[in-house]
C-alpha cells in the first residue's frame, strides 16, 4: 500500500463534535478529505449544571464510533482528539474521558484556551494567505465559539497576545437561560455582562488602535454564507465596518424561526444567534476598526495545519508573544533579547554535553526573555515574582506545564541553590529535574555575560576540549567587561557540577 500523510482530528466542542481528515499535499499544504459534524450540546451540560450528563456521554460514544469508522475508511492511523471548554470545565471531566476511552478506545486530550487560539489562528491565517490578505496591520481577531470567545491580537503576521473570555454564545445563552432572548432585558443584561470582560481586556491590550477586525465563528459563517454566496468558496471576505454593523443590527431582531427558515440552519444554531450578534456588535462599537474581515476558521483544521507545518513556525509566535508579555512589566528588552541570544548560543554549542532537544531550548529562551519581569512587582525577591508572573500568564502556544517549567528556570537565574516549587513540581521526576537544572545553568552563564545590561558581548564561541573536561567561553567584546567577568566566575558553578567541567572565560576585544 502506498503511503501518504493523512491526519484526522476530532474536535469535541461545546455544541458539536466535528471531524476533519486531511492530506498533506505537495502543492498546497492541506487538502481536506472529509469534514463531519454532529450536534451535541455538551456545553449545555457543563455551563448549566457543571457536569456532563450520562445521556451526553452515551451520545458522544455513538458519534465517536461513527467517526472512527470513517478514519478506518482512509486507513488513517494518525489522528488526534481534542476537547475544549465544555469538557475542560466539566467537574466530571476525568470520568467522562475515561468513559469515552473505555467505550471507544479513543483518548481525548483537553486542550487549553491558548492552544485553541493557536489553532484558530493557524486556520484563519491559512485562509487569509490564500485570499492574499495581509496581517501586518494591528488586527484583532474575535472568534466566537459556543463555549468561549477567543481574542487574538495580531501584528506583522504574528500573534502578539491571546485571551479567552467566557463569552461563548451557548454559554451566555445558558447562563441567562431564564431571560427571553428576544426581550430588551436580555440585550441589556448581556451587554453589561460583556462590558465587564471587555473593559478588563482593553486595559491589557498593548495598543489601542485596531486597524482590522477579523470575525470568525460558526454563526457568522452561516450568516455570511447566506449574504455572500461566494463566501463558502472564498472563505474570507472584507467588508465595510458600517455595513457590517448594520447587518448585525438587522439580525439582532431576527426571530429564531426566521433564522432557521432563511439560513436553512438547525434550530439549535438559531438560539445562539442573538448572543452572538450582541457580542460582535459590542466589540465593533468599542474598537471601531477601519475594516472588518469575516473569515472561516476551524479548530480542527488548525490542529491539522500545525501537524503538517514545521514546528519552528510556532516557536516564533511564542517568542513574539513572550516579548509582548515582558513589555507589559516594563522589562528591558535589549537585555532580555541579549540573554536569550546568549542562551541559544550556549545551548547549541554545548549540546554534546547536555543532550537536550529543541523543546528544551524553547523553555530556555522564554525563561531568558522573562527572567527579570518580577522587578515590576518588587525588586526585593524579584525572582519569586518572576516565577508566578510567568506561571499565571497565557502566552500563546504554551501549556500550563510548559509555563511552570519556564517559570522554574527563570526563577532560578540567580546564583543560589536551585529551588523548585514543591507544590507545582510534586510529580516531577529526577530526570526532569536534571533537565531543568541544565537549562538553569546555561541561563545563569548567559545572564552573567550581560551582567551590565550593556550588550557588550558581540559574539560567543565555545570550545570544549577533547576529553570534555574543560569548556572555554571565548567572547568578543567592544569594551571592557569587568562586571561580566566577575559574574561569570560566580555563576558557572552549577554548570561545572552538572557536566563535570571547568569553565574558563577568554576575551577578545574588537574595535568598532
Amino acid at each position, binding site marked *: 500500500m502506498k503511503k*501518504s500523510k493523512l491526519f484526522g482530528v476530532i474536535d469535541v466542542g461545546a455544541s458539536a463534535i466535528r471531524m476533519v481528515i486531511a*492530506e498533506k499535499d505537495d502543492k498546497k499544504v492541506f487538502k481536506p478529505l472529509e469534514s463531519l*459534524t*454532529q450536534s451535541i450540546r455538551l456545553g449545555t451540560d457543563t455551563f448549566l449544571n457543571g457536569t456532563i450528563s450520562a445521556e451526553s456521554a452515551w451520545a458522544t460514544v455513538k458519534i465517536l464510533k461513527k467517526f472512527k469508522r470513517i478514519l478506518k*475508511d*482512509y486507513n488513517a492511523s494518525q489522528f488526534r482528539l481534542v476537547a475544549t471548554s465544555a469538557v475542560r470545565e466539566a467537574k466530571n471531566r476525568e470520568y467522562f474521558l475515561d468513559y469515552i476511552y473505555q467505550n471507544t478506545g479513543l483518548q481525548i486530550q483537553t486542550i487549553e484556551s491558548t492552544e485553541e487560539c493557536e489553532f484558530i489562528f493557524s486556520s484563519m491565517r491559512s485562509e487569509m494567505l490564500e485570499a492574499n490578505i495581509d496581517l501586518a496591520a494591528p488586527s484583532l481577531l474575535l472568534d466566537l465559539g459556543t463555549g468561549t470567545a477567543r481574542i487574538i491580537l495580531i501584528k506583522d503576521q504574528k500573534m502578539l497576545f491571546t485571551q479567552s473570555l467566557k463569552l461563548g454564545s451557548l454559554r451566555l445563552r445558558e447562563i441567562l437561560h431564564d431571560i427571553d432572548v428576544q426581550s430588551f432585558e436580555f440585550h441589556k443584561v448581556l451587554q453589561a455582562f460583556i462590558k465587564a470582560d471587555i473593559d478588563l481586556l482593553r486595559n491589557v491590550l498593548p495598543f489601542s488602535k485596531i486597524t482590522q477586525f477579523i470575525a470568525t465563528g460558526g454563526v457568522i459563517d452561516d450568516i455570511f454564507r447566506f449574504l455572500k454566496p461566494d463566501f*463558502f468558496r472564498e472563505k474570507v471576505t472584507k467588508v465595510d465596518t458600517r455595513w457590517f454593523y448594520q447587518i448585525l443590527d438587522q439580525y439582532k431582531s431576527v426571530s429564531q424561526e426566521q433564522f432557521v427558515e432563511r439560513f*436553512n440552519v438547525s434550530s439549535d444554531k438559531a438560539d445562539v444567534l442573538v448572543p452572538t450578534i450582541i457580542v460582535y456588535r459590542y466589540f465593533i462599537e468599542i474598537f471601531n476598526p477601519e475594516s472588518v474581515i469575516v473569515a472561516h476558521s476551524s479548530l480542527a483544521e488548525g490542529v491539522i495545519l500545525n501537524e503538517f507545518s514545521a514546528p519552528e513556525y510556532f516557536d516564533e509566535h511564542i517568542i513574539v508573544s513572550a516579548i509582548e508579555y515582558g513589555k507589559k512589566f516594563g522589562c528591558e528588552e535589549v537585555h532580555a533579547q541579549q540573554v536569550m541570544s546568549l542562551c541559544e548560543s550556549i545551548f547549541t554549542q554545548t549540546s554534546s554535553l547536555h543532550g537536550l532537544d529543541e523543546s528544551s531550548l524553547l523553555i530556555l529562551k522564554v525563561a531568558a526573555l522573562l527572567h527579570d519581569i518580577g522587578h515590576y512587582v518588587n525588586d526585593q525577591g524579584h525572582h519569586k515574582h518572576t516565577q508566578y508572573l510567568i506561571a499565571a500568564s497565557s502566552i500563546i502556544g504554551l501549556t500550563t506545564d510548559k509555563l511552570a517549567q519556564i517559570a522554574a528556570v527563570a526563577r532560578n537565574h540567580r546564583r543560589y541553590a536551585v529551588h523548585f516549587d514543591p507544590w507545582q513540581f510534586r510529580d516531577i521526576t529526577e530526570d526532569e529535574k536534571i533537565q531543568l537544572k541544565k537549562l538553569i545553568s546555561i541561563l545563569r552563564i548567559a545572564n552573567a555575560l550581560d551582567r551590565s545590561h550593556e550588550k557588550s558581548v558581540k559574539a560567543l564561541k565555545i570550545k570544549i576540549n577533547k576529553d570534555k573536561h574543560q569548556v572555554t567561553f571565548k567572547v568578543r567584546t567592544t569594551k571592557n567587561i569587568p562586571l561580566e567577568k566577575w559574574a561569570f566566575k560566580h555563576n558557572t558553578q552549577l554548570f561545572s557540577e552538572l557536566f563535570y567541567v571547568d569553565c574558563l572565560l577568554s576575551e577578545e576585544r574588537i574595535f568598532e
Partner: protein
Amino acid sequence: MKLEEFNESKYFISRELSFLEFNYRVLEEAMDNTNPLLERLKFISIFSSNLDEFFMVRVGGLKDQVEAGYNKPEPAGLTPKEQIKRIASKTHELVKKQYNCLKRSIIPQLRKHGIEILKYQDLEEGEREYFEDYFFNRIYSVLTPMAYDPGHPFPVIINLSLNFAVELRKKNGKKRFYAFVQVPPVFPRLIRVHSNKGKCFVLIEEIISRYLPTVFKGYQIVDSVLFRITRNADFNLDEEGAEDLLAEIAKKLKSRKTGKVVRLEIDGKSNSKLIQKIVDEFQVKSYEIYDHITPLDLTFMMKLASIKGFDHLKNNELPPHPSPSFNDDIYEDIKKGDIFLHVPYESFDPIIKLIEAAAEDPDVLAIKQVLYRVSGNSPVVRALARAAENGKQVSVLVELKARFDEESNINWAKTLEKAGCHVVYGIVGLKTHCKALLIIRQEANGVQRYIHLGTGNYNDKTARLYTDCGIFTAKQDFGADVSDLFNLITGYSEPGHWRKLAVAPLNLRKRFINLIKNEVAQSGPGNYGHIIAKMNSLVDSEIIQYLYWASCNYVKIDLIVRGICCLRPGIPDVSENITVISIVDRFLEHSRIYYFQNGGQPLYFLSSADWMPRNLNRRIETMVPVENPACQQRAKQLLEFNLRDNIKARVLQPDGSYTRIDRRGKAPFRAQIELYKAAAPKTEETSVIFSPIFEVSASQD
C-alpha cells in the same frame, strides 16, 4: 401574471387521471399492430401490472383519505371521492379496451402463429389424461379449501391471488355451504399441453375448475366463481422510534396481505350469491367491481411473451455497445476526463468492472454505494461482498423502502452484512433514492476519489431495459460532495455545504427554482430563454407554477415526461410556450436530464429526482451538473433526439389527452433507435438492420 395566480385548479391535470392516460399509452402500444405480436402481449401484461400497483398504492391511499374524512381537493380541484369515481369509470373503459384488444386482435393472431391457450373442452383424450394426472399428483395436495359458515370466520383472501368461491350442498341435503379455494401460486399460470398442434397451454384455473368437485367429496357444487381482490398496500411506516427498520418492514410486509379491498375482479358474472358474500364481507362498492374479466390477472402474459423461439414475433435484439471511453485502466480513463454512460445503448459493464476491480485492488481503501433496487444474484452485490472479504471498508446504504421490493432487499442486505460490509438502512422518514458510488483509492499522489452518479439504480438487469445515464468523475469537488453525501445518508454527519451537487430534501427544490428564475432573468422579447427537462413524472405544483411563470416571461419550455404530467400546456397566457411530449417505446424511459440555456452558457444536469413532491421533499435525491463539454454534448444529443421523435412520441394536449405527432412530410425518427445507432463505436459499420417495427417494454417505476 404573478406567480401565485398560476395555482388555479384549471391549470392542473389530475395526477391520477394523468397516470391512467400514461397507462393508456402503454395499452396503445399493445393495440399498435405495427409492433411485433409478442411485444404487444408484453404491453398487455405491463398495462395490468401498472394498474395493480396503481390500485394498491394510489387508489388505496385515496380510500384512506376518504375514510379519514379528508376532503381537500388536489391541485386539479378533485376531492378524493371524485378522484376515486373518475378513476373507476376511466379504468372500466380502459380494461374493456385491453380485453377487446387481447381477444379480438392478439389471441387470434397468436393462434395463427401456433400459440394458443386452450379450454378444457378443446383438449383431446390423451391430453385430458395428462391434466388429470397433473391435478391429482401435483395440485391436489396443495389445495386448501376453507369453509365459511357460522363456525368458521371469513377466510383470509390474499391480495392479488386467484380464488374460487364455491357454493355447496350436501348430497340429498338442502342446506347451502360456502367455501373458498385459493389457486396455489406455486404453479405456473400456464401449463404446457404436450401435443403436436403447436405451442398450446391451459390455464391452471381451468384445470382446477374442472376437478373442483373432487375436492369436496360428499358435496355437490351448486355454483363456483373465480375472483381476485386488490388490497390497499399503501402502508405508512411509522418510523419514529422504529429502532430496527429491518424488523419493522418485515412486519409491515405481512400486513400488506390484509389491507382494505379496493378492487374486485370476477371471471364471470357479478350477480351470484357468492359474489354478494364477498361484496358484503369486504364492503366493495359497485364501481369497484370488474366482472367478465377472463382470464383474470394478465400479468402472466409476460411469461408467454418471452416464450422461446418465435423471434419473428419479437423485437430485434439491440445488444448494448461497449462504451468507447473505457480502455484497460478504468481509473486512468476516468482521470482523463468525466465519462458519460448511457444505458441500455451503452453497456452497464463499466460500473460492474469498476466495483469488481476495486474489490481486488490493494490500493483501494473504501467503497461506498447506495443500493435501491438490485437484481437477484446481482454482480454488484457479489463484488461488494468480495471487496469486504478482501478487507476493504465497504459501506452500503440499502434502501429497504423501495416499494414492493422490500422482501428481496432484506435478503441481499443480509448477504452483504455477512460478508463484512457495513450496511446502513437509510434515514428515518426519508427514502434514499439517489444513486451514488464512491471509491476511495490511495495513489502515489495521495488519496483519490472516483465517483459515479446516475439517474438509474445499480441493477444490471434493468440497465438493459431502462434508459438511464450517469457520470463518472475523479474531480475533487465532486468527490468531496459525494463523501459528504454518504456521511449524511449514513447518519454520520449533519449536512454541510455542497460544492457541486444539489441534494433533496435540502436544497434541490430551491436549486431548481433558482435555475428557472435565472432563466427568466436572462430572457426577454426577442431573446427567448430555453428549458428542456426530461423526467418520468411532473407533479410538483410549485415547480409547475414557476414553469407557467417562466413561459409567460419569454422562456420556451420543452418537457419530455414519460408518465404522469400535471402541467397543462398550451393555455393562452399561461403555458403557451410549453410543450410536453411522452415517449413510450421498447425501453422504459427513465433518465432525468435538465437543461437551461443560461444566456448561451448552457447548463446540463443529471438527477435521480423527478419534479414530484415526494422526490423533492421526502427523499434523498441528488442532482449533478454535467460540466465536461464532451459529456454535455451527449446530454444535448439525448434531449434533441427525444424532441425529434415522431414515431413513439405523443404530444400532451391542453385537455389532458395525448395525440401522436403528425408525420406528414417528415422523415420518420425514432429516438431510441437513433440513440442506439449513435452509441455504436464510430469505426465499425453498424451491422444491425433496423426494421421499422420495434417495441417497448415499460413498467411503472
